[in-house]
């Protein structure tokens, strides 16, 4: 059975279209990461799952029921961690969870849930005095009431420190192991990488990509980026750019000071270096960058990925790429030779 099924869903607020013609299916038992930059329409989509917002067009079905007509029955089997919520300042943490237990007609032990999210020591305090992270944990405890079949978590890590975010992921993982379907949104891809079976990327209200994280990486990673530091008097001359551009498999060449940034197919690297040396250009140093998750995300959310051309996007430009993906090719014989020449 499908846990979530959106067909041709569109939502307009006045003359602003928040979600356009969205088709999305989440299978039962799946962990689905719903990604996109702020303002992409993630929260609107989640609000439609919960019947807080009604679609302008299309159908939203959750756990086999119509979200607009059968919201109460859906939420009886769904745990929700909303985004931008507030707590009841004068009620204690335990009273919040007790209220959720009563509302869901469940028989959970509030203390066990509070312990699970690490709030048991503060259970008797008024929630009005809780920090943002504690409120987030409290709402998670309320969401876990009644062993829900579906967990809908809107930006679950917001307000949590790295340790808290890790605990959140572990709880999500345990719920998934229990058999629950998990649907959560985030604007940070790194958070979803570890736990998601599948991710969907939303941009301007449209789903621009949907795959496993590996699948997305492959789709974008068919190309690699070379950064070549060029020595000699001419630096990155027009001749050097022309020489590289002529190489088979090179899709793009940019100049960055004395360096060349080359987008090329896997395996074209040695031909690029050879072409430069044939043209009499000194190659001082070079290295390869692999697309990081950050680049991947930016490629889909900022570039032209919606047109099926992610590789032309900003994959090559993310700063984050340099730290985790720099592949040290500087010790190849050619480059070593180049270094010697520069030294002379």
């Amino acid at each position: 059975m499908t846990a979530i099924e959106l067909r041709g869903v569109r939502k307009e607020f006045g003359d602003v279209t928040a979600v356009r013609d969205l088709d999305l299916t989440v299978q039962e038992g799946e962990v689905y990461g719903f990604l996109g930059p702020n303002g992409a329409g993630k929260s609107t989509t989640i609000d439609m799952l919960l019947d807080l917002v009604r679609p302008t067009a299309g159908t939203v079905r959750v756990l086999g029921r119509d979200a607009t007509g059968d919201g109460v029955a859906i939420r009886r089997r769904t745990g929700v961690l909303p985004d931008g919520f507030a707590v009841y300042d004068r009620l204690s943490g335990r009273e919040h969870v007790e209220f959720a237990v009563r509302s869901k007609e469940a028989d959970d032990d509030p203390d066990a849930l509070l312990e699970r999210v690490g709030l048991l020591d503060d259970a008797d305090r008024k929630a009005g005095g809780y920090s943002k992270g504690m409120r987030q944990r409290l709402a998670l405890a309320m969401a876990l009431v009644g062993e829900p079949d579906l967990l809908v978590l809107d930006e679950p890590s917001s307000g949590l420190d790295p340790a808290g975010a890790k605990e959140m992921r572990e709880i999500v993982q345990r719920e998934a192991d229990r058999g629950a379907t998990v649907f959560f949104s985030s604007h940070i891809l790194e958070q979803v990488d570890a736990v998601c079976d599948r991710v969907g990327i939303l941009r301007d209200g449209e789903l621009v990509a949907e795959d496993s994280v590996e699948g997305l990486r492959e789709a974008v990673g068919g190309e690699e980026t070379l950064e070549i530091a060029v020595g000699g008097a001419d630096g990155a001359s027009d001749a050097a750019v022309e020489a590289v551009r002529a190489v088979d498999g090179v899709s793009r060449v940019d100049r960055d000071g004395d360096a060349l940034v080359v987008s090329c197919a896997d395996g074209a690297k040695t031909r690029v270096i050879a072409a430069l040396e044939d043209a009499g250009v000194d190659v001082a140093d070079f290295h390869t960058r692999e697309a990081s998750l950050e680049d991947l995300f930016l490629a889909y959310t900022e570039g032209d990925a919606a047109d099926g051309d992610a590789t032309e996007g900003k994959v090559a430009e993310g700063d984050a790429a340099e730290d985790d993906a720099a592949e040290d090719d500087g010790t190849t014989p050619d480059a070593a030779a180049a270094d010697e020449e520069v030294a002379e």
Partner: protein
Amino acid sequence: MTLAAIAEKDFQDAVRSRGMIALVALFSLLVAVFAFVIRPTGQGEQFATELLLRFFVRPFLVTTLVPLVAVVIGYNAVSGERESGSLKLLLSLPHSRADVVFGKVVGRGAALSIAVFAGFLLPAAVLAVLAQTGGIAAFNVGSYLGFTVFAAVLGVVFVAIAVGCSAAASTQRRALIGGVSIYVLFVLLWGAVTGQFLGAAGGIVDPLPVSTEQVRTFLRVSNPTTGVEILSNAFLGGQLFAGETVNRQISAASMLVFWTVAPPLVGLWKFDADDL
């Protein structure tokens, strides 16, 4: 139905506000002041519980202060949660929007009733002790308690009107304007507004098989504060739902029921259609 869960949570939340304690203290103080003012001064003069309630407590306290307090308690019931975001937490649980609106009416109505009872009972205890020790000649506990029920009823009616307005309002600001309007209309300007209405509608009323006087009476009885006045006076006179004003009492009671149910329904109708 999860209405009971919402009502209980809202009740707990409301009775813990500092305003509630202030309210109980205020009611107690005012009733005590009135009781002191009309205390028997000479031999043979009786302390009349009915006199205290009918001519002091009701006009000065019940029909002006109770509606004000009810509007203050009710106006932000739904809109306040909507603006703060706690409504998201509430509606992430399996509650319908009707449960939310009517749960709020019940929860806050109960909180106000508790405040009214607590505020009236403290002075009552003092009066009862005085009656026992001969400080005052007599204190009619039955009249006093019965009257307190009417005061609470009036409070619940105004809570219902204010919650309905709160459910319909998309922002706190609008809810506040609505709340103030409710108070001004029902407590301060009802006579003037309905008088204007009758003047303007004279041409419409004439062909109908009712006299202008009947319409005037109906409009007067339609105001919940007047409704409670009619019923509580009948009660204190030992003529509740009896005697020559029985028809008027029935109209008044019907209007009180109408004002308790209709505004929340209208508010729900708007609230249910809104994107939150």
